[in-house]
């Protein structure tokens, strides 16, 4: 490969790049009118799925916390109360 644009201070070979840029800048047809509608429908589905996942995760967290509390209360070691020996009978 030749070193392009030796005299210039541009990092990329200017002329070639401009040519390719022009090539890419070709006229393009307008977008179909229902494109936004379709994207929105899909975006709504995405949002719904995301919210569902969030709700499920929060529910799971809540259930886990409740179960943890119940188990802790149930199995908490009770302080053993030793009755004093009865005397004076």
């Amino acid at each position: 490969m030749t070193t392009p644009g030796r005299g210039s201070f541009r990092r990329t070979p200017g002329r070639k790049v401009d040519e390719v840029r022009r090539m890419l800048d070709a006229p393009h047809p307008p977008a179909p009118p229902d494109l936004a509608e379709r994207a929105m429908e899909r975006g709504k589905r995405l949002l719904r799925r995301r919210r569902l996942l969030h709700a499920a995760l929060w529910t799971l967290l809540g259930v886990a916390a409740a179960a943890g509390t119940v188990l802790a209360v149930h199995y908490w070691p009770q302080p053993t109360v030793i009755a004093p020996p009865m005397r004076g009978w």
Partner: protein
Amino acid sequence: MRERRRACEFEAFTAGAAGRLLHVATLLAGDPAEGERLLVTALARTYADWFRLRGEDPYARTSQELAAAFSRRAWHYRRPRGGLLDRLPPRERLVLVLRMYEGVAEEQAAAQLGLPTERLRALCMHAVATMRSTPGSTGSGSAGGAR
């Protein structure tokens, strides 16, 4: 209420930007129908994240989503499907479009694609050389012979 605002703002944005975005998607995918599919995927994500943009340009975000969606499915696009950049492999196509059409800065494009800057530059130069050596490219009279 919030959803209405989202829809209104999104519609206004799409009305202005869809043409250019569709062109980008078609350049990447090769075939217009496939480009449209790619763009709908990217726009749907922009719609879902609309209130999380926090001042970021929705066009830039959609363009990033487009590039990400294309990268994810690069294997799908490995075979030529027609279009202007038919001769380039998917990654070079993406680099060329980001750098030359979207005008993304070198460092930013490299970060976006997870490539070292030198590698990105090499890919871009190679893509430019390939495009110029392609016979029958549109509107370039002086392209013959030069590499």
